[in-house]
């Protein structure tokens, strides 16, 4: 391995991978990708998949916004206009949730990063990993066929009895969601086992990067909550096929039971979506501030706390559906408790930036945008958690704005930040910094213009899922639509910047940002075996030994003047493994 020119002192830098080491090029042919067991390639395939899903669902979102430009609907007309609108928002929601947000960070970035960050060669079950990718593909195909078979118009929540009586491809879509659930379970299971058993010597729980903590917490939710979704969807399918009478009031069932079952999964699923984003932001803020993360343990524990508390608050989706007053009040109280760990994180991120050495790189711009947007999303959650105000705001645009601030302003922005942060590592190319920053700015402005007016719309009583609306809401809807176009443009710029880098980008150094976690200790892109030998596990947030090498435009680790500790060559080989195979 060649190292670049050395500025001063004892420099550690893995240099660049050879073509036969680079995981992207070490084996060729389409089959080497289709049947790969390499977690990095699976991660890249996931990345392509979720971006495609996002593109589809994003275009559907544009259709929704354009339709709402006029009170009577601007895009669709004629007697089936409402029908088309309902199908479009259903598919937008379902694809975004099941195909994009849930797998985006854990499956795409997580698959690439978890073993590398951990210092392992691969996830614990590589075949299972590939299997979950293909389950994802199968689920996606089911969804696309629901799109082609058209007419799915139940909303992504599949509420009964509408979903059991609606004359549309509910079975196809729920089968898709069922399959995707298993994909999600297997991914989570894989990560839990990997983090538990594959840590190299020296990687103690509290030396793990916070992204791993967040992934671990997410995986717990995936494993514990998704099976309940599985059985709920299975019962829904059974209800449609043979009217089992559990959810359908016509056969003595209770539709609210479905809502309980559904939200028992889907509320924790909200944390499946946002927790990995917390992990990304924790790492981004720390690396680009070149400062130790503030309150590591608080952040780590708050991830776990959110994961566990997230299981107790599903009832707040049903404040108006007629639960008993006591149940409702208890759910409201529990809902407030969940906001505390989220607040802790925001304060810790700010404290990390304080007195740091901040580089306003593209990922940092996204991280700052995240904190701003997520704070708004989190704070407006208080209006919805408070019972009396929720009675007014429930199922209005206020809710739409709130969860878009959390899901898009939170998860999507963090996902973009993460992609820009790890892009050099994944593909070995640097992108245009200015292009990235401009994309971040446009996305930030466009997003706020889209969703801030919706808070006002909701407060004024505009119900959600309306294909047409009263003319008094028109101005705000038009602002929102213009914002959506701006947001779309920003996302397009981001995509162009990234794609451009693939062909014209400069070769990326091993450590372009000055990160101290293990993934920056291997080449960009990493070799297919990740690490030659079990890496030296240091403090993931100790930036004191990382120096900027301006000549080669890279960061290098400068080891202090001391003897290398004996664990440089750890005795990881057990006695029985000495025999040849």
């Amino acid at each position, binding site marked *: 391995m060649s190292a670049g020119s050395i500025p001063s002192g004892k420099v550690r830098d893995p240099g660049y991978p050879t073509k036969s080491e680079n995981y992207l090029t070490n084996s060729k042919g389409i089959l080497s990708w289709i049947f790969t067991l390499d977690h990095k390639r699976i991660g890249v395939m996931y990345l392509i998949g979720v971006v495609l899903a996002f593109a589809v669902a994003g275009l559907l979102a544009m259709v929704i916004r354009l339709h709402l430009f006029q009170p009577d609907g601007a895009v669709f007309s*004629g007697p089936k206009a*409402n029908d088309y609108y*309902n199908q479009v928002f259903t598919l937008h929601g379902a694809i975004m949730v099941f195909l994009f947000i849930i797998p985006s960070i854990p499956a795409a970035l997580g698959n690439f990063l978890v073993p590398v960050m951990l210092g392992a060669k691969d996830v614990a079950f590589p075949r299972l990993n590939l299997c979950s990718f293909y389950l994802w593909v199968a689920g996606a195909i089911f969804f696309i066929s629901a799109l082609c078979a058209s007419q799915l118009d139940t*909303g992504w929540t599949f*509420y009964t*009895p*509408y979903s059991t*009586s609606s004359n549309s491809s509910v079975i196809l879509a729920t089968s898709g969601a069922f399959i995707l659930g298993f994909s999600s379970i297997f991914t989570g299971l894989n990560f839990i086992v990997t983090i538990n058993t594959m840590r190299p010597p020296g990687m103690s729980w509290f030396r793990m990067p916070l992204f791993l903590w967040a992934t671990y917490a997410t995986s717990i939710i995936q494993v514990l909550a998704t099976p309940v979704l599985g059985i709920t969807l299975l019962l829904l399918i059974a209800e449609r096929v043979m009217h089992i009478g559990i959810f359908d009031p*016509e056969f003595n069932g*209770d*539709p*609210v039971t479905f809502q309980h079952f559904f939200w028992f999964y889907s509320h924790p699923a909200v944390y499946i979506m946002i927790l990995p984003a917390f992990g990304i932001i924790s790492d981004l803020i720390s690396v680009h501030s*070149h*400062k130790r993360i*503030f*309150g590591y343990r*608080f952040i780590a524990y708050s991830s776990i706390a959110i994961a566990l508390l997230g299981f107790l608050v599903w009832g707040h989706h049903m404040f*108006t*559906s*007629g639960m008993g*007053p006591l149940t409702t*009040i208890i759910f409201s109280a529990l809902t*407030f408790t969940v*906001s505390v760990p989220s*607040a*802790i994180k925001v304060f810790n991120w700010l*404290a990390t*930036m*304080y*007195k*740091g*050495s*901040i580089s306003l790189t593209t990922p*940092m711009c996204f991280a700052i945008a995240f*904190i*701003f947007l997520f*704070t708004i999303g989190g*704070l*407006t959650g*208080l*209006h919805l*958690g*408070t*019972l*009396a*105000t929720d*009675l*007014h705001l429930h*199922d209005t645009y206020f809710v739409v704005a709130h969860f878009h601030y959390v899901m898009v302003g939170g998860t999507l922005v963090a996902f973009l930040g993460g992609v820009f942060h790890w892009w050099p590592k994944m593909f070995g190319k640097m992108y245009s910094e200015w292009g990235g920053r401009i994309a971040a700015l446009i996305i930030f402005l466009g997003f706020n213009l889209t969703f801030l007016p919706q808070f006002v719309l909701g*407060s*004024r*009583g505009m*119900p959600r*899922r309306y294909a*047409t609306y*009263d003319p008094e809401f028109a*101005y705000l809807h038009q602002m929102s639509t213009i914002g959506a176009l701006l947001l779309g443009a920003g996302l397009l710029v981001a995509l162009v910047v990234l794609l451009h880098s693939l062909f014209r980008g400069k070769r990326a150094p091993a450590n372009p940002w000055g990160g101290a976690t293990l993934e920056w200790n291997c080449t960009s892109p990493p070799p297919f075996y990740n690490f030659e030998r079990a890496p030296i596990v240091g403090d993931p947030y100790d*930036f*004191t030994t990382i120096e*900027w090498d301006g000549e080669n435009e890279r960061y290098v680790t400068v080891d202090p003047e001391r003897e290398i500790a004996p664990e440089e060559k750890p005795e990881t080989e057990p006695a029985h493994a000495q025999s040849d195979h």
Partner: protein
Amino acid sequence: MPVILNQPWTLLADKTEDYAWFPEAASTFAAENDWLYGVITIVCVIFFIPIAFSLFYFAVRYRKPKGGKAESNTAHNTPLELAWSIGPSFFLVGMFILGAKAYLNHRTVPDGARDIKVQSSSWNWSFDYGGGTVHPELHIVVEEPTKLSMRSTDVIHSLFVPAFRAKKDIVPGRYNYMWFEPTVASRKVSDEELAAAKKKMKDLGEENWNFDELDFTPDGYTYYDLYCTEYCGLNHSEMQTVVVVHETQEDLDAWIKKYSMRGENEDPADYGRKLYSRRGCSGCHSLDGSKRVGPSFQEVFGNKRPLTDGDVVVADENYVRESILYPKAKVSAGYQPVMPSYKGQLTEDDIHSLVEFLKEVSEYSPAEVVAGDPESSNEEKPAEGKNATDTEAK
């Protein structure tokens, strides 16, 4: 802050009243809700402004060229962290208590509240004022607690009156209740204005009242919007109606009387047409031959009807009457037995009026026995007397 929020929101444009943050406050819940909303918003702003400020300030202030070292590397500060973990909790407890108290008020129906039965079906509302008077508009009396006993005949709906800040889901298979006490009565517009509006509507050729353009009902009252907020399928966004708050009980009684029975000199067929739109027939039966949930009225009366059991009957008065009272007895071929029975809900005179109405709209020629072609629903043919309910929601 609550006061500010209630003020017109003038940032954006000239039509100030269009930019109020809240809809009109017209019930006892509104003041409390808006106040609480304001309190929460203030707390949010108190937290948000320092966060946003320090976020951008730090980003600028501590920006350094690459290779710069952080001025501090403090790993943690437990007292500080505990402070910002526990500190905000007090605000949360406060919000929770205020919210829960106000919520219990929403849930506790006061004794002696006027009870109105609400039936929702896709995509119609019907409010039962007792004595067989059912109307798609909600009419209540100012400063009188009103309880709604709601049920749904098909899927979940949700009744939401923004001006009252009140909302409740209507779940099939159970009764849900809600209540509110309106504080601001509807204004009655002058007769001239009403007459002018009626003329205008007629001139425009619009069969139905255009609620988008006019801020009063065909009876001349200003109104509050009432929305369905639980997604219920195709025309969810058109499942809207209005709430009219009367000044006095007498005024309401007069209104009820107007709609409770056929006028003395009113033609039964005309009254049947009203019943058709008021009692929800229009949700399932078209007048233009298009096939909905049920057969179109265009092809019913006087025609031969094939039944699901293979028989064929001629739809005469008795058949129509039986179908209204015992809808599952003889089901037309090609349709599901989903129609609810109207036994006890319609008087004999009502049924008579409906039969007369059917005679009027049906085409008699025996060639019309074929079931309606689904394609024909696409034809935008504004059949005479197309129901008011569908489009009365704007």
